C-alpha cells in the first residue's frame, strides 16, 4: 500500500501522531462490497482530499470516521482510541465533526440558537441569551464571519448557512473536521470564502477531510489526496506533485475501458428540441444544443454544475433569463410542466421516492397517472384497458412485480424506476428527460434500463440522460455533453465517448 509512504511524508512535516487511522477496513452492504481493505491515516493540521467517482467508497469512509458505521473487518482509531462499537457518540467525544452536504440547520431559529443546538447555555433555568450571543460572535469571528447571531438562519445566503454549519462544528473544538462537498451548492465567490476558512481551521491544528469533485478547489486547499475506486484506495498522493490527468486516470482506472460501449449510434432523426443560448443567472451561461429524435443524449456534470437547472428549463418548470428552449416552434421554458407535456416532453425526477412514485398506489395506477384518458371512458376507469396498459408496460420493460396491483412502494428501486419511465411511454412522450435514472439502482437493473433506453431511441424517442456518473455514459449514449460551471465544456460522440475525458471536462475548473 502506498498509504504508508504518504503517512511518512505527512509525518515528516508534522511529527504529531495521526489523529485518525483506518486500518485495512472492509465493509459490505448486502451484496455490495462498499470498502475493501482500506487503510488511511490523517495527521493533525493536514487537509486531506478524498477523491473518487460516485460509489467509489468515499461516503463509506466518512461514515466509518464519524462512527455512523463500523467496519466488518479492520479498525478505526481516533486520537489513539479504537472506535470499536462506540458509534457516533464516541467519535464525537474523540473530536470528529461532520458537515454534510445537506444543510442541517433549523431555518427559523437564529444563528446563535443553531450554533448551540441542543446545548443552549442556561442560567437559573432560562436560556442565557447574552452569553449565547457573546460566544456565538466569538465563534463566527474565528471564521472572520460578519454575521449577526440574532438573525434567523433562513435570512442568510446558502454560503453563509454553510459557514454557520462549519462554525457550529468548529465551536465544539474538533480534532477532525469532515466536510462532505461543502461547496457543491455555492457560486465561485462564495467557494473562496469556504476555502479560506478551511485554511484557517488547518492553521489551528485541526485535521480536515475534504470531499469534493472540483480539482482546482482541492488544489487550493488540500495537502494530500486519497483517491478511491471501487471501494479501494488507489493511492494517496501529495497534491503538489500530481497532474490532474493522473488523478482522473486513477479515479477511472483501466477496467472501464473494457466494458461494452455503444458501438453504433442509432440513426439520428430530425431535431425535436432546440436549446438556444439558455442563461439562468448564476447557474447557466449560454447553453446551446439540439436534441434529435432517435438518440440518447448524455448530459454529464457533477453536483452544482448546473445540470439540475438546465433540466428544469427544458421541462418548462423554470424560465431562461435569456435564450429559449423550443419544441415544434413552441417555447417550452417557463411555460409549465403541463404545457411541456402537451408538446410530448416527459420528465423523471432525480429523487424517485420523494418526487416520483405514489407508494401506496399499485404499479398499474402509477403507470397511467400521466394520462388517464387512455384507460378511461368519460372519466370512468375501464378495468380491462387499465389491466392491458399495465400488462403491456410490465412485459415490455420486464418490471418484476407480484401483480399489476402491487403497491409500487414495495418494489425494488430499479423496478420503480422502470415504472416511472414507463408512465411517460404511456403518455406517448417523444422527448424523455431522465434525471439520474440509475441512482440507487442495482447493477443488473442498470443494464436493463440502458437496454430499455437504447430500444426507445431505436423507436425514434429522444432520450436525454442526465448523470453524474461519467462511466455510465459510454454505455448508453450516442452523444454526451459535459456541463461544468454552467457551460458546455465538451461534446463527445459514440464510439469515442471516453469516461476519463468526460470526467476531466466535468471537474477541471476553467
Amino acid at each position, binding site marked *: 500500500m502506498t498509504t504508508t509512504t504518504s503517512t511518512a511524508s505527512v509525518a515528516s512535516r508534522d511529527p504529531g501522531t495521526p489523529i485518525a487511522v483506518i486500518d485495512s477496513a472492509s465493509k459490505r452492504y448486502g451484496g455490495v462490497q462498499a470498502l475493501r481493505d482500506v487503510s488511511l491515516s490523517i495527521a493533525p493540521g493536514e487537509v486531506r482530499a478524498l477523491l473518487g467517482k460516485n460509489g467509489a467508497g468515499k461516503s463509506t469512509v466518512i461514515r466509518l470516521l464519524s462512527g455512523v458505521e463500523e467496519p466488518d473487518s479492520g479498525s478505526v482509531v481516533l486520537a489513539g482510541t479504537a472506535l470499536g462499537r462506540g458509534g457516533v457518540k464516541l467519535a464525537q467525544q474523540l473530536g470528529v465533526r461532520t458537515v454534510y452536504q445537506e444543510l442541517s440547520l433549523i431555518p427559523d431559529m437564529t444563528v446563535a440558537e443553531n450554533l448551540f443546538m441542543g446545548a443552549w447555555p442556561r442560567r437559573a433555568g432560562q436560556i442565557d441569551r447574552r452569553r449565547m450571543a457573546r460566544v456565538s460572535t466569538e465563534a463566527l469571528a474565528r471564521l472572520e464571519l460578519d454575521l449577526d447571531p440574532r438573525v434567523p438562519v433562513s435570512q442568510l445566503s446558502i454560503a453563509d448557512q454553510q459557514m454557520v454549519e462549519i462554525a457550529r462544528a468548529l465551536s465544539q473544538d474538533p480534532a477532525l473536521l469532515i466536510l462532505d462537498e461543502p461547496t457543491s451548492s455555492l457560486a465561485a465567490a462564495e467557494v473562496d470564502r469556504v476555502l479560506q476558512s478551511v485554511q484557517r481551521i488547518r492553521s489551528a491544528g485541526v485535521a480536515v477531510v475534504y470531499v469534493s469533485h472540483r480539482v482546482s478547489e482541492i488544489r487550493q486547499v488540500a495537502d494530500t489526496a486519497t483517491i478511491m475506486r471501487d471501494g479501494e484506495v488507489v493511492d494517496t498522493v501529495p497534491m503538489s506533485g500530481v497532474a490532474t490527468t493522473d488523478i482522473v486516470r486513477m479515479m477511472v482506472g483501466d477496467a472501464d475501458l473494457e466494458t461494452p460501449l455503444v458501438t453504433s449510434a442509432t440513426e439520428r432523426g430530425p431535431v425535436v428540441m432546440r436549446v438556444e443560448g439558455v442563461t439562468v443567472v448564476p447557474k447557466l451561461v449560454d447553453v446551446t444544443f439540439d436534441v434529435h429524435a432517435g438518440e440518447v443524449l448524455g448530459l454529464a456534470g457533477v453536483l452544482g454544475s448546473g445540470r439540475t437547472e438546465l433540466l428544469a428549463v427544458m421541462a418548462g418548470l423554470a424560465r431562461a433569463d435569456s435564450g429559449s428552449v423550443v419544441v415544434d416552434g413552441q417555447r417550452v421554458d417557463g411555460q409549465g*410542466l*403541463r404545457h411541456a*407535456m402537451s408538446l410530448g416532453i416527459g*420528465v423523471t*425526477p432525480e429523487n424517485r421516492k*420523494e*418526487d*416520483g*412514485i*405514489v*407508494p*401506496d*398506489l399499485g404499479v398499474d*395506477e402509477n403507470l397511467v*397517472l*400521466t*394520462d*388517464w*384518458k387512455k384507460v*378511461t371512458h368519460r*372519466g*370512468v*376507469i375501464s378495468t380491462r384497458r387499465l*389491466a*392491458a396498459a*399495465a*400488462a*403491456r408496460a*410490465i*412485459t415490455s420493460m420486464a418490471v*418484476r*412485480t*407480484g*401483480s*399489476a*396491483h*402491487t*403497491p409500487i412502494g*414495495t418494489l425494488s428501486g430499479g423496478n420503480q424506476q422502470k415504472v416511472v419511465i414507463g*408512465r411517460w411511454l404511456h*403518455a406517448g412522450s417523444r422527448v424523455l428527460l431522465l434525471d439520474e435514472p440509475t441512482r440507487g439502482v442495482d447493477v443488473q437493473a442498470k443494464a436493463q434500463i440502458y437496454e430499455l433506453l437504447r430500444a426507445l431511441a431505436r423507436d425514434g424517442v429522444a432520450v436525454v440522460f442526465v448523470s453524474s456518473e461519467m462511466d455510465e455514459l459510454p454505455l448508453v449514449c450516442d452523444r454526451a455533453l459535459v456541463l461544468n460551471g454552467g457551460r458546455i465544456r465538451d461534446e463527445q460522440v459514440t464510439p469515442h465517448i471516453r469516461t476519463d475525458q468526460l470526467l476531466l471536462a466535468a471537474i477541471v475548473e476553467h
Partner: protein
Amino acid sequence: MTTTNVAPGTGAAPTTSRRRISLTSQQLNEGGLAVALIVLVVVLSFSSDYFATVDNMWAILGDAALVGIVAWASTLVIVAGEIDISVGPAVAFWSVILAELNGKIDLPLPVAVLVTLVGGALVGAFAGWLRARFGVPSFIVTLGLWSALRGLAQFLTNALPIPVGPSPFLDRLGGKIGPVPASAILMIVLFLIFAFVAQRTAYGRSVYAVGGNARAALLTGINVSRIRVILFATSGAMAALLGIVFAGRLASGNSGAAQGLEFSVIAAVVVGGTSLAGGRGSMLGTLLGVLFITVIGNGLVILGVNSYVQDVVRGGLIVAAVLINMLLANRGRATSH
C-alpha cells in the same frame, strides 16, 4: 400481448405473499371494525330490550345519515391530505339560507334548493382555491369558515329558528319512506356514488395520488390545484345538502343545528382507517366508522347514560378504536418486511 402473464393473482410466487399481507392490512382495519360493531350491537341488545327493535335500527340509520352524507366527501378530502372542519356550521348556515330563501323571500322550493347547493359548492370551492392557489393550510381556511358561517347564520336569524314553507318534498326528506328514513336512503345512494368515484374514476384515483405524494402527482401533470378545489366544493355541496335535510327534519332553518358535526365526521373517517397524513383510506371504512359512532351514541342514550358522560365515553372509544387500528397496521407492516 401476454396479458395473462401479469393478470392479477397469477404473478411470480415470491412477491404474491407480500401483496396478500399488504392487502389484509387494509382489510384488517375494516374487518376489525366490523367485528367491533357486531360485538357492540350484541352487547347493547342484551343490555336493553329496545335497542334491537326494528324501529331503533331504522332510527340508527337515520341518525347515521346525519353524519354519513357529509362523511363520504370528507373521506376524499382527508385522503387527499387535507381537512374540512367547517362542515357543522356549514350545515347550519345552509339550512338557514334555505329557510330564508323559501320561507321569507318565497322563492319556489326547487330554486331555493338549487341555490343552496350551488352556494355550498361555491363557498367550498373558495376554500379550496385559497388552499390550492396560496397554500393556506386547509385547517386554517376551514377554521375561519367554521367561525364565520355559524356567526353569520346566527346574525341572520338572531339565533331563532326560521320556519320553511310547508312542502311535501321537505317533509318527505325529513321523514320516512315506508319504514325507512329518507335521509338513510340518500346516505346509501351517495355512499355508492362516492365509493364508485373513489375506486373507479380517474378523478378519484388522482385524489389518492395527490394524498399519497403531491409532488409526484404534480410532476405527472395531474392538475393538483383543480383537484383540491373540486374536493372542497364537493364537501361544501354535501354540507349544504345535509343542511336541506336538517331543514326538512326540523321544518326550519336553524343556526344552532349540527353542533359538533365536524368532530363526528372526522372521528368516523379516522376510525374507518383513513390516514390523516393522506393517501390511504376507503369509503367502506368510513361507512363502518359512521355506523360505529352512531351505534355508540344511540346505545349510550338508550342505556340512559348521563349526557356529559356520553361525551367522555365517546371520546375514549374513538381514541381506543384508532389506537387498535394503528397497532394492527404496525404489526401488518412488520410482517410484510
